[in-house]
């Protein structure tokens, strides 16, 4: 193979990789957009149901502005701890205890000064 052919093959090959992944990106973006829109419509239809909780839980929900994730035991109270630090602490605790994080219930995390 001569150098000119090698140069053309190299440029063409790089373009093929780019084109392949670019088209794949478009396909995934379309797929993602479809699922996002589907998720939004699902959330809208679920919202009225969430507005009718059992009487015992009403005060707790009123205190919190953020939505509660499905299956969640509620919000953890953070004292002088950022969200990211809290996430790290919860992950470390789960890892140390060798328990899945969704099986643990964190009530509060407080920075010890």
């Amino acid at each position, binding site marked *: *193979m*001569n*150098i000119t*052919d*090698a*140069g053309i*093959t*190299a*440029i063409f*090959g*790089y373009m*093929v*990789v*780019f084109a*392949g*992944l*670019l*088209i*794949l*990106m478009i*396909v*995934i*973006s379309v*797929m*993602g957009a479809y*699922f*996002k829109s589907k*998720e939004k419509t699902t959330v809208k239809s679920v919202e009225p149901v969430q507005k009718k909780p059992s009487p015992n839980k009403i005060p707790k929900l009123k205190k919190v502005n953020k939505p509660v994730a499905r299956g969640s035991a509620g919000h953890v109270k953070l004292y002088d701890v950022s969200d*990211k630090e809290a996430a790290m602490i919860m992950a470390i605790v789960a890892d140390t205890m060798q328990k899945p994080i969704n099986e643990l219930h964190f009530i509060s995390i407080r920075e010890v000064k």
Partner: protein
Amino acid sequence: MDILETLRTLIADSGFAGFFVEEGYKNLIMILISFLLLYLGIVKKFEPLLLVGIAFGCLLVNVSNFFSGGVSSPDALYHPELWDAFLDHDSEFYHSYGNIMANGGLLDILYIGVKSGLYPSLIFLGVGAMTDFGPLLANPKSLLLGAAAQMGVFLAFFGAVCLGFTGEESASIGIIGGADGPTAIFLTTRLAPHLLGPIAIAAYSYMALIPMIQPPLMKLLTTEKERQVVMEQNRTVSKTEKIIFPIVVAVFVILLLPSTAPLIGCLMLGNLWKECGVTERLSDTVQNALMNIVTVFLGISVGATTVASRFLSLETLKIVCLGLIAFCFSTVGGLLVGKLMYKLSGGKINPLIGSAGVSAVPMAARVSQIEGQKANPKNFLLMHAMGPNVAGVIGSAIAAGFLLAVFK
């Protein structure tokens, strides 16, 4: 029984005598190299799961095989001349696995799995089952970084042609820049099997050296301000998307480049087993038991190809240098497109995630995370870098598929 004669025969047949016959000293050099590789694998922890096996395969083949007149020792574990006949169109044993099975040593038989492309594909099955494509699905633009980071593959390919390698050999050398061991082995066994030893060792060594190779380039090509960028958290990807993704990629990429079918097919099948939620046993098997078994066979049989008389050559030195160039330019390619994305997004994308596009999962992503945190301790780039990182796996498979389509 003539004891002296027996002793003489034993001494003459021993490997120690082999060091003084023809190019036997080369075996001694290779044995020392295998010790060095064992040291790097065990003490320095350079890709130990594969490097220890490769190093021991190298040791075994060079203590058991002393050539005399181009013919292997009778008790050799690996016979390169059998594989030469296997690849020779004019030989009566052309593509005859029966000849290998009948006359080969233990490592010849294990090497059949490499030659047929079985081991790299099975490794990809395990890699697929271990990979979470969620970060890529959350940020599809990552695919462009994975594509950009294949620059080293094609630059090294061009460089290899300039240095006098054939097109097939150059393609195999270039793919080192994909930073993907199984892909490099897969392509090399198809195009330039005689270069498998140096290419595999260069690929795995440089992958292990990523924490040393990438940071200087990352600092050189990015400003402090760029490295400090904190990226927004990615959206949550639904289970359905994760299940559909491997099917879409398999269909799309294999239709685009049919030669990628063994690698992409296995990668996506492994991922589908992981994500679909109804094949947990299979996912667990390919992630652990199968992956470990194949790693045992792959390492030792790749090591077996480092026969002294073929490995110790100027070509090996060129391959090692070109491999390093490929790695560096792949990193540079990813970083440059990362910088472009930083500009186009108005400073929302940290260009450091671009270097993770060189595959080498998850080490390259970890390097991005470490460098990002050095610049800004509140920076958490790991999940953002995992997107380009897994995109790099697909990108290097496409690059390999292209080179295979051109040269096969």
